[in-house]
């Protein structure tokens, strides 16, 4: 297991290297580039001013040197300072990341808690009404623009019924509340964003666990388990489920970038001060150091998500643990 983990970690190094390379290229090779953007607002910016700016950001050096400089600072987690307010990028990201992570972890838990039972149930009762209904739900779930659903739910629950707040993560008067009230307040603010960002994932994962389960219950060992007279619930829970969940774990890992990317839309709609919203405002302000920092961190978070998925895969699937040991 340890050996497997070590190998898996080693594989991440070239990927992270590639991620930094692409991040750097996106910002530096695109037509325009950082300095043009800063000076295009004021047409009067002289050639001299542009040169000064270039020197300030080290943009007068050849590209590969710039990249190496940036990479050296990146290794020390130094992404430079924001163009907007001069604070360090890492500080800006660090204060935004917890909110985004909490929302994503909550919605991932919601996805798992809802999608897997749905998938398993509709597989064991294939072609039943429940199965057909969930299939319809899955297709609609795949096809719904969640930002639109967010708008509609905001109109229903926020505007018409006035039940839920429609922006932010806490009320203005939160500091005056007791602990219980405070938690209720957070829950009210988070229910729509978390539920919505889970929505698409629930559709996808329930479909996936359904087909995975269908495949497993046709296997010989399930027939054997039934033949020796086990209760159907035992067969499903102890024999089928564990095997059916194997590929599902991988899919969960793959869904991480979608969740993180989706946070841009949700955090913007619900005015949640997370990484997605920071990214959106940085993109609007063309704050390159922050954009590059978030791009890298977003991609690394994805790699970590995949790593966690692979580790849990290894935990549930003994074959991987064993083959890792042998090598």
């Amino acid at each position, binding site marked *: 297991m340890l050996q497997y983990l070590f190998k898996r970690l080693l594989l991440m190094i*070239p990927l992270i290297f*590639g991620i930094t390379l*692409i991040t750097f290229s996106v*910002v530096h090779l695109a037509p325009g580039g950082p300095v043009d953007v800063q000076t295009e607002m004021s047409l009067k910016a002289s050639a001299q001013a542009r040169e000064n700016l270039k020197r300030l950001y080290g943009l007068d050096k050849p590209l590969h040197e710039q990249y190496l400089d940036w990479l050296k600072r990146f290794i020390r987690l130094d992404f430079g300072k924001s163009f907007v307010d001069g604070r360090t990028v890492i500080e800006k990201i660090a204060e935004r990341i917890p909110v985004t992570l909490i929302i994503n972890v909550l919605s991932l838990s919601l996805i798992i808690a809802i999608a897997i039972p749905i998938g398993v149930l509709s597989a064991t009762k294939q072609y039943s009404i429940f199965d057909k209904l969930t299939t319809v739900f899955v297709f609609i779930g795949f096809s719904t623009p969640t*930002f639109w659903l967010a708008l509609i739910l905001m109109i229903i629950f926020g505007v018409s019924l006035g039940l839920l707040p429609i922006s932010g993560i806490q009320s203005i008067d939160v500091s005056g509340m007791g602990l219980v009230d405070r938690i209720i307040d957070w829950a009210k603010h988070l229910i729509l964003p978390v539920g919505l960002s889970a929505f698409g994932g629930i559709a996808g994962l329930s479909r996936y666990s359904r087909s995975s389960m269908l495949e497993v219950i046709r296997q010989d060992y399930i027939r054997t388990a039934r033949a020796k007279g086990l209760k159907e619930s035992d067969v499903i829970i102890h024999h089928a489920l564990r095997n059916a969940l194997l590929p599902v774990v991988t899919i969960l890992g793959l869904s991480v970038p979608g969740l993180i990317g989706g946070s841009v839309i949700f955090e913007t709609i619900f005015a949640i001060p997370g990484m997605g919203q920071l990214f959106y405002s940085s993109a609007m302000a063309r704050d390159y150091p922050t954009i590059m920092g978030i791009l890298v961190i977003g991609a690394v978070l994805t790699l970590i998500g995949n790593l966690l998925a692979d580790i849990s895969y290894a935990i549930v699937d003994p074959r991987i643990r064993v083959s890792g040991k042998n090598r």
Partner: protein
Amino acid sequence: MIKIIWKRFRKNSLSVAGLAAIVFLAVIALFAPVVSPYEPTAIDVYNVLSPPNSSHLFGTDELGRDVLSRMIWGARASLKVGFIAVGIAITIGCILGSVSGFYGGRIDAIIMRFVDIMLAFPTFFLILAVISIVEPSISTIMIIIGLTGWMDVARLVRAEFLTIKERDFISAAKAVGAKDLRIIFRHIMPNALSPVFVAATFGIAGAILVESGLSFLGLGVQPPEPSWGNILTSGKDNITVAWWLSLFPGIAILITVLSYNLVGEGLRDALDPRLWGKEKN
């Protein structure tokens, strides 16, 4: 061949309904100038934010523009983005995937690591980063969605190539001295295309969703040019007073994306040779 596929596709009534909806939308988008009741950008200050009524079926927006007309023109934008973005993605994916699968070895390793790296980026982040540099417009987002969406196609094509290149007719082609390019495009590619078609159909659905999301954030199709996403932006700005601005464009997106997904599902079943044996029953 096409007859058989159609025969199998036809059995799935939902997919056929999806196909009908797609054709209907395409016709509307094509004849937008004829079918839309008003000019999509015609401002009418006397009819600002009027709810749906007999002269404006879907109501008007904050500048008095007819929402139905804007949606009809918006269909054009969505379909254009969907098709061109997916066209770009498929071209890149087919080229890289076929090279990777056909040659194997180091080239394959490099291309596949590149795919892994691209997949690590949350796509929306990557798109947003590029748009922050290049002016957002309908052509920008088509290209960017295409450039960030080819990875799955590359993987699919590579996998097809890996199995097909071992087959006897490829050895035969090599034996008679066919050049690599000819083998790739004439002999392997046509046999590797069915999963690509399926992926393309799902891809169009995805691209339309991404386009509407970007336009909604103000980073896609730029007003006054109408798109479903940017009508929803005015829906959000007028969320307390004009529900119709939020409701109708969203339903249009939902139905369109759903139709492409249904057709994709139907195509997948119709093109899957493993299911062909069951055709009789």
